[in-house]
């Protein structure tokens, strides 16, 4: 089971869905949610002072309304600017090949397609999580 997850998504209802799905599937013990990429970046910056607050995995929405940059840029900053080495990927209703390629280039490890039936994808992700953690797993799209 993953100890802690950070979800970056502007949609309140999805926070509830994700929280319940993760709990029901025994995916994570704790889940923190933020509503914008800017808020998430503040947290990422704070982890250098308090490493214990760093989550094991970050799920980022692609288009985060109310943010000054999108999910792909957030992943780029987390991986290249702050070098946090956390498991990170996209969770989005979009399934655009170009965007997926961009996400891959900035170091996203997975792409989960959001839909009404998200539980099977999360279950599959749970099985692959350890490979993402030890950096042996290849980029994967869960659709």
């Amino acid at each position: 089971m993953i100890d802690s997850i950070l979800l970056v998504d502007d949609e309140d209802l999805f926070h509830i869905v994700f929280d319940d799905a993760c709990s029901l599937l025994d995916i994570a013990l704790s889940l923190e949610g933020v509503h914008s990429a800017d808020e998430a970046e503040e947290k990422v910056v704070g982890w250098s002072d308090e490493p214990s607050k760093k989550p094991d995995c970050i799920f980022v929405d692609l288009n985060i309304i109310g943010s000054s940059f999108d999910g792909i840029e957030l992943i780029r900053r987390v991986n290249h600017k702050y070098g946090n080495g956390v498991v990170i990927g996209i969770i989005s209703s979009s399934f655009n090949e170009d965007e997926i390629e961009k996400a891959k280039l900035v170091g996203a490890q997975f792409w989960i397609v959001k839909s009404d039936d998200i539980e099977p994808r999360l279950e599959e992700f749970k099985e692959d999580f350890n490979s993402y953690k030890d950096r042996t797993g290849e980029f994967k799209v869960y659709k």
Partner: protein
Amino acid sequence: MKITLNKEAREELQSLAKNKDVYIEGNILKLLEHSDDDFKEYINAALAKDTERRKKRLEITKQVQDKNKELEEKAKENDDLMAELKEALIIAEDAKEAALNDLDVMQKKSQFQLIGSIVSYALWVIVGTGIITTFMYAMAIYWNSTETTLIGNTWSNLFGILLTNSFSIIGTIMGVKYANNDEKQE
């Protein structure tokens, strides 16, 4: 990482569940150590209740999400319809303006046609009268009539009046045309 509660705390929780039907909820349940059978039973009951509650909430949240999506789609459809209506209104207004312009042009055209007919008949009358009086004057001169002077004066007066009227009519037509051009330019 497991959390072990002491006997007193475990019994307190079990009693609370038995008497008040109050259970611990959330992911903390997954971290509690349950070596004794009674507490294991408590944890299982609490987990079952928590799972049931979460399943219900997940289902309801998904329904709300679906409703929201439907509402968003309907709002979008509504916006599209409003945009179409606005476009149709603009087209209708343009058509109305064009029709009014056509009507105006038609009215002006018929007015001009009427003026043209009047002027044409007036000019024919003037020219006809001129030809007849000139012919009479010429005949009088040719036949050496005693009335030549009288007819000559009459012809001269009549011709003067006819010319004056002709210029008056032409002036009126030019004035109407000039005024009409000014209106169009405005």
